[in-house]
């Protein structure tokens, strides 16, 4: 059995008052894209900082390619590319100088790789860091993480601040890195992002790993809030909507219908076919909503089973 890219055993970091990370057991295989999903303050960054050897666990252990994250942290860093949750200050240094500086700390960076990454994200490296927008700072973080083609990428909410086009470019980059043999550990609080990019997902809440799910299970968890606005005077196909598979909690308010759609949109779209819809809005629930829904469902299922 190949050594895991990431392995943790009862990893805990207790900040007191119920904050931190508690008894986290996780195994991420090599060449896997693993999503680490959780709401703000769930413990994602704490986990990543433990993996990076920046903070000491209160209990348990964390390993990267079989190396202990605290004792062998220099060796671990040789194998890791890292995007921090917040890019730090580099003041008046130019982007090109930041890359040269941190690249040199790794023993040098490949000029071609850097150029390619900067071009892909349209990141002007001649500008001073303090002139960068938050999106550009994030792009620089991505360049720094990928420039030495590491076998493991640890990315803490890497797409925050990126526009949709650059997000798409980033997902392509992830795919290329994975195809090139890299393992990716991606933390996020956006379900669709993790769904889009990852093979497996660990869901963390209040410092505890509540579930490790594959993509199919993730699809079953997710739902959308939908609002349909029909043309005034047009017939509203209420019965068809209510009976559509996966459509729940239907509320009618004049010519506006609100409902929840679980799984695919096909049944709902079939139900409203032929009706004059003037507006259709769909939005993803927050992770908190999703967790509440998920836990309520689990609890009721458990009660029925009992």
């Amino acid at each position, binding site marked *: 059995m190949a050594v895991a890219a990431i392995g943790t055993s009862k990893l805990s970091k207790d900040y007191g008052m119920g904050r931190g990370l508690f008894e986290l057991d996780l195994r991420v295989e090599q060449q896997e894209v693993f999503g680490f999903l959780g709401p703000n303050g769930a413990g994602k960054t704490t986990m990543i*900082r433990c993996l*990076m*050897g*920046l*903070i*000491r666990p209160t209990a348990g252990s964390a390993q990267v390619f079989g190396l202990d994250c605290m004792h062998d*942290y*220099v*060796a671990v*860093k*040789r194998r*890791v590319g*890292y995007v*921090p949750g*917040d*890019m*730090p*200050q*580099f*003041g*008046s*240094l*130019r982007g*090109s*100088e930041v*890359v*040269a*500086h*941190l*690249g*040199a*700390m*790794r*023993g*040098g*960076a490949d*000029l071609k790789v*850097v*150029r390619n990454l*900067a*071009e892909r994200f*349209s*990141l*002007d*490296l*001649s500008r001073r860091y*303090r002139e960068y927008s938050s999106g550009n700072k994030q792009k620089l973080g991505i360049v*720094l993480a990928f420039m030495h083609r590491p076998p493991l990428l640890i990315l803490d909410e890497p797409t925050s601040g990126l526009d949709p086009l650059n997000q798409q470019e980033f997902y392509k980059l992830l795919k290329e890195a994975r195809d090139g043999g890299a393992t990716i550990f991606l933390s996020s609080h956006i379900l669709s992002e993790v769904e889009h990019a990852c093979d497996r997902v660990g869901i963390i809440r209040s410092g505890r790993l509540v579930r490790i799910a594959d993509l199919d299970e993730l699809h079953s968890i997710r739902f959308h809030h939908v609002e349909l606005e029909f043309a005034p005077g047009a017939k509203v196909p209420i019965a068809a909507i209510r009976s559509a598979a996966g459509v729940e909690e239907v509320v009618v308010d004049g010519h506006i219908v609100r409902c929840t759609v679980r799984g695919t949109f096909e049944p709902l779209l079939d139900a409203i076919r032929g009706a004059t819809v003037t507006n259709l809005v769909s939005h993803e629930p927050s992770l908190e909503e999703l967790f509440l829904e998920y836990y309520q469902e689990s609890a009721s299922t458990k009660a029925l089973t009992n």
Partner: protein
Amino acid sequence: MVMLLLALRLGRWGIAGFGAVAFLVTLLQSAGFYRVAGRTEAERQAFGRSMSILAAQFSAIVPPPVRPDTVGGYVQFRAFGSLAIAFAIWALVAASGAMRGDEERGIVEAVLAAGLSRPRMITARLAAFALGSLVAALAATAGLLAGVASGGETFSATAAVGAAVALAALGVCCYSLTTLLVQLTSARGATVFAGIVLLALFLINSLSRTFDGLARWRWLSPFHYYELSSPLVPGGGLDARATSILITIALATAVPAALAFSFRDIGSPLFRFPARARPASFEMSRSPVWRVPIVRDLYERRISLLVWAAGLAALSAVFVVLTKTIVQPLLAIPALAAYFAFFLKGDVYTSFLGYIWFGFAQLLMAGFAITHVARWSAEDADGRLDLILSSPISRVRVVGERVIVLMLGALLVTGVSGVAVGVEAHYQAIELDGRRLAEATLLLVPFTLVFGAVGALLAGWIPRAAVALLGAFAFASYLIVQLGPIFKLPEWAEDLSAFKLYGQPLTAGVDQTGLVITLAIVVGGLAASAIVMQGRDIGT
């Protein structure tokens, strides 16, 4: 009102710290007076005469004493002279931090987004500093009264409060001037620019006491108006006109500061030249300086290193000129020449220069070390250390590289000033022993490293408080030397001070024991900081 409270909250550590310093300085100086000045009228007059001769050495920094045979005159000279410099530095740091530092941190944007106008924001910050500096200055008053009480005497509370009012007025004036000056430059250069202007205003006043040509410009300096008040001296008082001028300057500069702040973009200086259009570049810097550890860090600090080196070189040359200007007329007095010959070892010029310049240079180099430690703490707080440690380098190496950078920086800065001293001494026909000058200059490096090692330990232990604690350490270290002989502290206690360990190398050569203890402190501090750094959580 909310902004005023917020400004007070943001500046609470400054108020507490400078209040504590002010209290301690006046308490120790006034209590010390009774230990060294004697009890009888004759003893005190003799003490006053010797103080006046001694004080001539410091005329480039603080005004000469008036009636140092009295506790008021002594404390006015020994405490309120140096507190004026401390309050000016506090005003500089507080104003540039409030205007440009908080801007970088996003606090200014958040405050303005809450609906506060820019002039009101400046007014609230100025009012908060005025209040804070008055509180800190009143702490000096309390220290004076407590010190006098310890000597079994009483002192006029009105006069003591008058001294506090003059001190606070100077602080507010410097704060307001800085608030205006920092509007004109980029955030990066704001503190340096305002600091250079304040230093120039300080030097115009202080050097005018020695160089007559500068006397006509003295009216420009807020420090001149501060010195017109001598409320603690018998027969003296708070000069109402001079204090009003300080407050008027503060108010008059606050208006254009508010206007400049209203007209400029947040994050930009008032005057900004349009950037030259140039094509985007996707290339990493190929400069070899980034490839070499240590060199890249020195290169990143090149501007500040050059400013420090040039500043120290210029000041050292000024001190050499001062030495010549002050000592020459004294030696012309036969009685004093005999006095110097009896008490001083070797050449009078050399002794004098060693005392005033290398004494002052020690303070500056302690400040140099503190600026480095401030940067180490900032790297920890803003996440840069996270990214540095995401590279395959050990924490011990980070500590080591930081200290080597500090050492080489100190070597450059002191080396340039040493050359400046040698060259200027040659022009002034002061004969200096080249070897001793080199030793005195080089000894400033381990002296700086003492503060670097203690700072590294503090930055690893509690980075957020490292600068304040290191400042307190430097202050205590300086006080031990100043007050040790007065309070008859044991030798070992004085040996704890880096200032004592430095010795008088220009006249007496290297103090081998002092050097060994200095190096032991450096090595011990660095070893402890490496251990602390290895075991700590980064960013907390």
